């Protein structure tokens, strides 16, 4: 069977999508780009291929045991265990890297105390992972860096003492996570699946043999990528020939058209860029605007805010939704975000109200790009990471309704993959053009 791969190398996250011959999405991969671009691309790609295998695995399960109770549960458990294995692998590797960093540091007097602190920290990290690693908890970040980062920092605070300062432990981590992120996955699908199968079988002993057969059937199936197109901020760094690279504007337009064929206006708010795109009834871009030179008001802004408040990105939206009176915020310089927040807090504004104001400020910037690109037409599709943020969505739909009238607002659960889907579609078209020629 042949597949088409689209890779969207974003500034904060890298996305990959696998399409089958019928232009159905069969695999998705997502990783954060706070590392080497090549590695990010290959991570996303590997993830997407893993995901595609699971797609077939589920199909096999459904076929073999159709209607059997617990089939869905079984599948979810297996997938979750697979991720857990991946996660633990990386935790262990990070642990080792941290120890190496410690050995190389000049702080000899801290060596032994830091080593035992690190051991304790990572033991707790592992235990916590095994305890409640839940892939399907939708509001959780799935990025290794985010998960391990917040755990590590909380634990480092706990294990730091007067003689073993927090800053020291933090620095060890900062050094090591960079290395960890620059490594590729490092294990094969087979081995991880094998380990995961054992875990799952422990939960569902009655299905042990079923798991065995299904797994081997999926492993037998070859995955052949027929064509591949890359896009996104870092596209120039992809090891692809020029004709396999497409502008992200075009990909977003086409991707949005794929999800919602009636889309005319697309807004994408990513980590450090915001794009407003108008497309025609075939997904062809007719006009667009994007921010340049300044990343104020983009997704990273929210990232800084979340860091400042020490909460997860996904918690920002819901918190802001609780506001009663939003505070007016005008500066949206991403780097100043934290200072602005502190300032407002010290003036006595509530966290919720400030957050509501911040979301509004971001949305206003987007509105300005939208108006520059020509306005907001029916249907309107919102994509990019920030589309996951309920408060941003709310502010946006309000402003659109007030200023442009009723518009159908589309947000696809897969919206973060919009650019990658567009790229995959271009890959498919290029390959059928080639065939036709």
């Amino acid at each position, binding site marked *: 069977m042949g597949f088409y791969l689209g890779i969207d190398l974003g500034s904060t996250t890298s996305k990959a999508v696998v399409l089958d011959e019928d232009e159905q999405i069969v695999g998705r991969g997502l990783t954060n780009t706070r590392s080497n671009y090549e590695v990010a691309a290959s991570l996303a790609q590997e993830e997407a291929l893993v995901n595609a295998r699971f797609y077939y695995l589920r199909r096999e399960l459904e076929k073999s045991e159709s209607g059997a109770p617990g089939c869905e549960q079984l599948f979810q458990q297996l997938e979750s265990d697979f991720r857990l294995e991946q996660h633990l692998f990386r935790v262990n590797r990070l642990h080792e890297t941290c120890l190496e960093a410690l050995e190389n540091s000049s702080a000899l007097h801290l060596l032994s105390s830091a080593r035992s602190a690190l051991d304790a920290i990572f033991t707790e990290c592992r235990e916590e992972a095994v305890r409640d690693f839940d892939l399907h908890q939708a509001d959780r970040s799935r990025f290794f860096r985010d998960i391990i980062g917040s755990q590590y920092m909380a634990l480092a605070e706990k294990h730091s003492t007067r003689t073993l300062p927090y800053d020291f432990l933090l620095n060890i981590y900062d050094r090591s996570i960079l290395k960890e992120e620059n490594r590729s996955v490092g294990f094969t699908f087979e081995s991880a699946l094998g380990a995961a199968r054992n875990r799952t079988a422990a939960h569902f002993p009655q299905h042990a043999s079923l798991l065995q057969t299904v797994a081997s059937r999926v492993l037998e199936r070859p995955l052949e990528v027929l064509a591949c197109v890359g896009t996104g901020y870092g596209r120039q760094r992809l090891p692809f020939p020029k004709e396999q690279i497409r502008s992200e504007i075009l990909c977003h337009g086409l991707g949005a058209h794929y999800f919602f064929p009636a889309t005319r206006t697309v807004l994408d708010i990513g980590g450090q860029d915001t794009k407003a795109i108008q497309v025609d009834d075939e997904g062809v871009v007719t006009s667009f605007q994007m921010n340049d030179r300044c990343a104020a008001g983009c997704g990273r802004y929210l990232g800084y805010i979340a860091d400042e408040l020490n909460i997860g990105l996904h918690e920002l939206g819901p918190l802001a939704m609780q506001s009663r009176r939003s505070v*007016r915020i*005008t*500066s949206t310089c991403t780097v100043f975000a934290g200072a602005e927040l502190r300032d407002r807090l010290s003036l006595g504004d509530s966290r919720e109200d400030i957050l509501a104001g911040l979301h509004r400020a971001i949305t206003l910037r987007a509105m*300005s790009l939208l*108006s*520059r690109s020509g306005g907001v037409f029916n249907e309107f599709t919102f994509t990019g990471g920030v589309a996951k943020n309920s408060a941003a969505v709310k502010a946006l739909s309000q*402003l659109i309704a*007030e200023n442009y009238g009723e518009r159908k607002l589309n947000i696809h659960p897969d919206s973060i993959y919009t650019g990658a889907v567009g790229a995959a579609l271009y890959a498919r078209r290029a390959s059928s053009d080639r065939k036709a020629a």
Partner: protein
Amino acid sequence: MSLQDSTGQLEEIIGYCESLYEDVDLQCVQRWKAAQPGRRALGFMPVYVARELIYAGGVLPVGLMGGGDQVEIIKGDAYYQSYICHIPRSTIEMALSQRLDCLDGLLCPSVCDVIRNFSGMWKLLFPDRLCRYVDLPQNFNPSIGGAYYRREMDLLMADLEALTGRRPTDEGVNRSIELYDRNRTLVEQLYRLRSDQPWLVPTIESYLLLRAGNVVPVEEHNQLLEGYLELAPRRTFRVMDNIRVLLVGSFCEQPPLGLIRTLEKAGCYIVDDDFVLVSRWLTRGIGAGADPVQRVCNAYLNASTFHSSKYEGNQPKRDLLLQRVAQVKADGVVFCAPSFCDPALLDQPIYMSTLDNGGIAYTAFKYAENTGQFQNIREQLGTFSDSIKLWSVQAAKEMH
């Protein structure tokens, strides 16, 4: 009247003015029009138009000074690049969001290229609404620029007639001249009081009072001013150890209130400024009399103040600036101009070298009408006032 009463009344006046300031939907104009059928209102871009003539025609001249920090820009950005000042985009925003629907037309005096082009944009966007570009002559010779201006004013009179169905009479114009002359006197008194005893008249109050004059009929504005001028001197405000500054450059796009407050908090009494210039454009009254339209024209030719969008001719504005500094006994000059405002910003180097030569301290910064952070400006102004304050003493006491 007790002190408390007068404080209360002052608060009431200022509170009312502030509500007018916040009235970005121009409800006050709507109310004025609704009170009597057939009333008309004409918007005009800041700086100068002959309000006397407009009002004489039974038309309310409404000064448009942008949306400040109150109007969120949603569509306005689609009309202006990032490097153009802010006031036209908020004005467009207000027009597109129907906030200016109560205006029967718009006058764009010649202030700068942005306003000039704005008049054309208005024509493209609202082809059915009156919009006139008033090219104020830069030639002040009565038989040349004067003759031209007179005929342009006749055109304006014809516009007014078309709008209301009747031509303003000479008596009407004279009455209107008297009202605006009175207004000028009161505004002058306000500024004099402020320069004499700045602690009695916080800039924010004098500013809000002036802004009120943009949207209410001149009679009502005169009442507000009279009330304020009577009550303010009875205040017992503490005199602060502030420096006295002259503010230059904010004649068109206006700084947000927060900025004006920041200026004073940072240790500066603003003893003169060029906010809402239209109310102080003429340096003397017009005076009622025969051929009042010509009197209005003559006043423009002979009594216009110095200003960035006006050609200085044989009255170099650098000299006038020095005069003004001396007149209000300013310790320094604060150049406070909107970003991207060519007229204001291109005058600054001339002014600065003049002040350098005269040994007068100055500082400069830019703003936009929706600037939200004043930290930097406070820091800058604070240092400016520190440096004037500490060193005037220091000079005598020589360190070390």
